[in-house]
């Protein structure tokens, strides 16, 4: 490996897709489920994936992962300290 920057966690098959969500999309999701941000599942800012996608505390990450029951499942997580 020439450069560590060429390495991306997200290229690994076992790491599901993590997408940083824009504010308006987050609001849409929260409204849809009648949720406060704090009621979302959490992900730590120190998590390698949140670091990689450049999320900040208070952001919401959309995770699309394979599911044995549904084929593909979408989960939203709030980034915390």
């Amino acid at each position, binding site marked *: 490996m020439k450069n560590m920057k060429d390495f991306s966690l997200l290229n690994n098959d076992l790491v599901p897709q993590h997408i940083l969500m824009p504010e308006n999309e987050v609001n849409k999701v929260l409204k849809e489920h009648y*949720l*406060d941000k704090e*009621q979302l*599942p959490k992900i730590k800012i120190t998590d390698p994936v949140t670091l990689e996608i450049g999320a900040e505390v208070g952001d919401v990450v959309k995770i699309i992962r394979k599911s044995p029951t549904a084929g593909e499942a979408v989960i939203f997580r709030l980034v915390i300290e």
Partner: protein
Amino acid sequence: MIGTVPKRIKEIRFGLISPKEYRKMSVTRVITADTYDDDGFPIEMGLMDPKMGVIDPGLRCKTCGGRAGECPGHFGHVELIAPVVHVGFAKLIRKILRATCKDCSALLLDSTQKKEYLEQIRMLRTIGQPIEDITNEVFKEARKPKTCQYCSAQQLDIKVEKPSTYVEKDGTHEHKLMPSDIRARFEKITDDDIEVMGMDPSVARPEWTIMTVLPVPPVTMRPSITLESGQRSEDDLTHKLVDIIRINQRFQENREAGAPQLIIEDLWELLQYHVTTFIDNAVSGVPPARHRSGRPLKTLSQRLKGKEGRFRGSLSGKRVNFSARTVISPDPNLSISEVGVPLTMAMELSIPVNVTKRNIEEVREYIKRGPDNHPGANYVIRDDNRRLKVTDKNCEELAETLEIGWKVDRQLKNGDVILFNRQPSLHRMSIMAHEVKVLPHKTFRLNPAVCPPYNADFDGDEMNMHVLQTEEARAEAKMLIHVQENILSPRFGGPIIGGIHDHISGMYMLTKGENRLDKNDFLEMLRKSRISQIIEPEGTQDGKPYWTGKQVFSQILPDGLNMTYKALLCENCATCKKEDCNRDAYVTIRDGQLLSGTIDEKAVGAFKGLILDRIVKDYTPPVALQFIDDMTRLAIRSIMHFGFSFGINDEDIPEEASAQISELLEDAEARVMDLIIAFNEGNLEPLPGRTVAETLELRIMQELGKARDSTGDIAGNYLGLDNAAVIMAVSGARGSMLNLTQMAGCVGQQAVRGERIRRGYAGRTLSNFNHGDLGAGAHGFVKSSYKKGLSPTEYFFHAIGGREGLVDTAVRTSQSGYLQRRLVNALQDLEVQYDGTVRDTRGMVVQFKYGEDGVDPMKSDYSKPQTIRRIIEDVTGKEVE
């Protein structure tokens, strides 16, 4: 009603209560041991002071103004003349005494050491870890110095006598430490030292373990009872408090009178005894305080501890009214949604009925019948809330005076909805709603088809019944937990209620092949089912019409049912002959008619029944319930018609078969010998990844296993498909071909941890074998069958193998039980919301869609995506691969 805002508990902190706080929370000082005056009124500053709450109806609490029942009660206090040790802290007091200086009360550790421990404790506290390990080390280390590091005072040994007497030993001289001395020492301990000992000085100072003030529990938690003779009988706690206050007074009088030290010490010890037994009347080394009758008193600890204590007996588990428990027994003539209730129970249990314009005549009838004439009434509650017992003397009169607006406790009768339960209630089907059927005798009766969800059998099992008391409860039970709503299990998405044992054998015998039944038999079979017309016969034989077993079964199938599947007894032939299968294993149902195939466990059994599954999912619960009722009744009729029995001679096989089996086993043993010889000569080729010895073991096990299975095939062939045990095994009713193999063929290899038996003597399993014998017989191969009987060595090996089986079922059940408990505790408050999300009680999202796909497992096809395929098949009428 006043609405209250729910509050959330942020944290719970435990500490000690200081004397100051005891006084602050007290509403009165108690100075006299008397309770009531001559007029029967509670004495002020006595043990029943109305400031501490009231128990007599009519009186009001002098603190909060509440009546009996409204006032929660308030604490009082007693000023102890001399301090006493709190027994609960006897060990802690000992530890602290030994860890601190007798003169300056410093914790006997170097300041650097203290700093280190303090840091460690604070660190563990912030990350929420237990600090016991550190504090134990602190006490261990601080015990060691012989002189104080701070004031150089010589430290003395501290001996403990009984539970709470501390004696300091100076050479041969012994000096008893009075609680006041101990308290004085503890008062001098610095806050920093306390923290190093693992306590929080702001909420728990060591000297608070020595009591100077005794809290007096509210009157409401020690109510006195008025006996029928008019005499008052006080609670055990009150008795104990009387003792304490009397001794306290005597102590004070003696001290003021300047009594000799010896008397003072005696009284002090007596006070200590009473306070100790007030807190815990079962301390070792202290004789328990007794009632006049000789019964030990139930004091504070005894109220909390043990199975009947407050925690396990009153908070985690409570007894309930309107419930009944007895032994269960089977009754296949009941519907699966019914339960047979003994008449004596039905007459004791009741349902409250509000008397209205519409039901007054009906209710009047119950009352007229009285309490001894089922279905009658037990109580009448008038509109002024007076409860009148119905007797056979006053029932006529009560029935006449009955008015609208009254309530009547009517006896349980047929059709009432009740809850039925069997412990351990591991899943939701352990409690289901049934309809009452009042029957004679003393047991609960239930249809054997509902045994699987309760996991019940009739070897002495007992079950509980709860009678619902409100219309709401009954409506809810009927709609949510009625038996018919629970035929499908949410665990695997298939029916959990269905045919068992004889139901399967009966259906199998009825539908296998072409059973010809004449008109009488045809009608007899369907007698218990609700069939109203005779269908066209299949054909005529000897000039008489006949019907087939398949036709009989078709009568109870709902119209429009279409199914095609392979039955349990299908042999999975390379090319399926479908309708022409020689075992009649290819089931086809068209428009509710069974055209081919045999009905077995895979059709109507609990857990596996595909036809059942289809009916529940495609029709309505009542249709499914009716089908199960009809099916079980038909099966019982059928098994009675054909006759079914199994005895020891059903395991008999002919001479030639025995000879074949012996020969087969001898061949196998010879092959094992060949393997052993090859092994000894070093000619055995090891399997990949195995040593030669391991390979030998595997090959031997393989060889013998094959031989055992072949004996089963031989035995099975000779027994034939008409043998009752074979019928039960292939239809799935009970037992397996392996059981049959072991009974008629050969029991086979006994194993411990999946290997041949090797334990026992050095180099051999039993002393009658040669050292190093690797043969089949020397390592637990049982050649005999159960029918033939086992040889002594075989019997011994069988016992070894059997024991392992028993041990690991015992271990497995306890382990899986505990795992289940932990899972239930962790998940019990999660709830699927209307928007499909799974949330906890705080509304935090656990899953955005239940199970990620939002599918109700109960309504899925055994959790497999079958629906689409079935719809295509239904629409096109063609099979989809």
